[in-house]
């Protein structure tokens, strides 16, 4: 048998097999089906557009680093042109600064205040009643973390996911305080999900008032004992891995001039 002969035979039987197709009936269906396909295409396009817009909106507004953005959801942005006081459990006074803006009034009920540097990737989160958290949960307290500022600072240096660091004595508003830089140890596991990313939690009050490390979030914690407010935590962070940005002299000077009264 030659291939050409077989092909010709197969072609003939294939054409015979479709001879029963009702061509005119299918022709009559074309306009209606074309309209239906166009509606389907439009619906699919609308769904895709909605998904894209939602994704873009989420990407533009999603929380990063230790807080949301230099402008809170109501658009409140407060340049620190003048010194002020935040009504925490123990009110906290802050100096004027051209380094930070703040959303100070956005979450007063949660006992914390967020300052942001104008780069949008660095900031300070100040919260009272700091509590050491377990590595797998931001709401569970780690009982080994201690109850005083110094104990918590030391505890941070011993966290398995924290790169080697040490505690440095300093002062905040004239009170004794302890400072410790914190970066993620290479290869360390981050066992909690927070703000859409895997994190290694450090200290929290009531979430989102807290501090943590992630793949790119690094920072410096300053802790002090404040009667009536437990341990006050001042977490200076940067979410691009730039530790220098979170620990430079201007930031440290600002921290040292905060005061709890």
């Amino acid at each position, binding site marked *: 048998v030659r291939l*050409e002969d077989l092909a010709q*035979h197969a072609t003939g039987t*294939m054409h015979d*097999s479709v001879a029963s197709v009702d*061509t005119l009936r299918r022709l009559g269906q074309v306009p209606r089906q074309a309209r239906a396909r166009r509606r389907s295409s439009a619906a699919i396009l609308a769904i895709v557009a909605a998904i894209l817009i939602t994704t873009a909106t989420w990407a533009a507004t999603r929380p990063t680093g230790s807080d949301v953005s230099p402008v809170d959801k109501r658009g409140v942005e407060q340049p620190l042109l003048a010194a002020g006081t935040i009504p925490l459990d123990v009110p906290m006074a802050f100096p004027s600064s051209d380094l930070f803006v703040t959303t100070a009034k956005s979450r007063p009920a949660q006992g914390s205040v967020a300052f942001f540097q104008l780069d949008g990737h660095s900031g300070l989160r100040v919260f009272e009643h700091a509590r050491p958290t377990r590595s797998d949960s931001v709401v569970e307290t780690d009982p080994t973390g201690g109850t005083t500022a110094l104990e918590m600072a030391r505890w941070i240096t011993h966290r398995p996911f924290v790169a080697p660091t040490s505690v440095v004595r300093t002062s905040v508003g004239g009170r004794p305080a302890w400072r410790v830089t914190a970066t993620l140890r290479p290869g360390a596991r981050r066992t909690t999900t927070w703000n859409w990313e895997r994190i290694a939690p450090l200290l929290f009050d009531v979430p989102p008032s807290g501090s943590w490390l992630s793949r790119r979030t690094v920072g410096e914690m300053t802790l002090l004992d404040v009667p009536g407010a437990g341990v006050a935590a001042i977490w200076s962070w940067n979410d691009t891995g730039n530790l220098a940005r979170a620990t430079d002299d201007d930031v440290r000077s600002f921290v040292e001039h905060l005061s709890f009264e």
Partner: protein
Amino acid sequence: VTGYTRPLGDDSDATVSTTSPALTLPLVESYECFYVREFPGLVALARALTGSAAQAEEIAQDAMIATYRRWNEVSAMEHPAAWTRRVCSHISTSVVRRTIVEARTMRRLRSDRPQEAAELDEPSSAFWSAVRGLPRRQAQAIALYYLYSSSVSETAAAMGCTEGSVKTHLARGRATLAARLEVEEP
């Protein structure tokens, strides 16, 4: 469904007879004429490439609807049928689009049972089954070449590639088919 008309718009229900030779508009074949002439061949092409009689009719219809929606453009082409055959062969070999067609076929089978397509005899069935086992472009080349008794240039137009590519696809496809079917290669 005979005669020549102005190109139909997508939403136009009216056909304007242009059978007068004095008309100054360029004459194009009516969509209806085109459909009646091409549809059975497209069903055969789709069946050859998919192996499914039920899906073949839906795939051919999809190709024809795509043509309908762009009829102004397609009818002005040098080879409108080549464009539609290309669409049909692409749908036939596209897994994603075939899945959509499959779902549509199932819906239609539930509501509108079509006439049973005739079965192929054993040699024909074996031949087309072997064609479907070829690489996608070789299968398209073989199906278009034989089903439409095309020349290489016509097949190239339907595949949207060069004649040289078609010759290569045909040669490789034939060699593979001859080996698999244990027949003599020309």
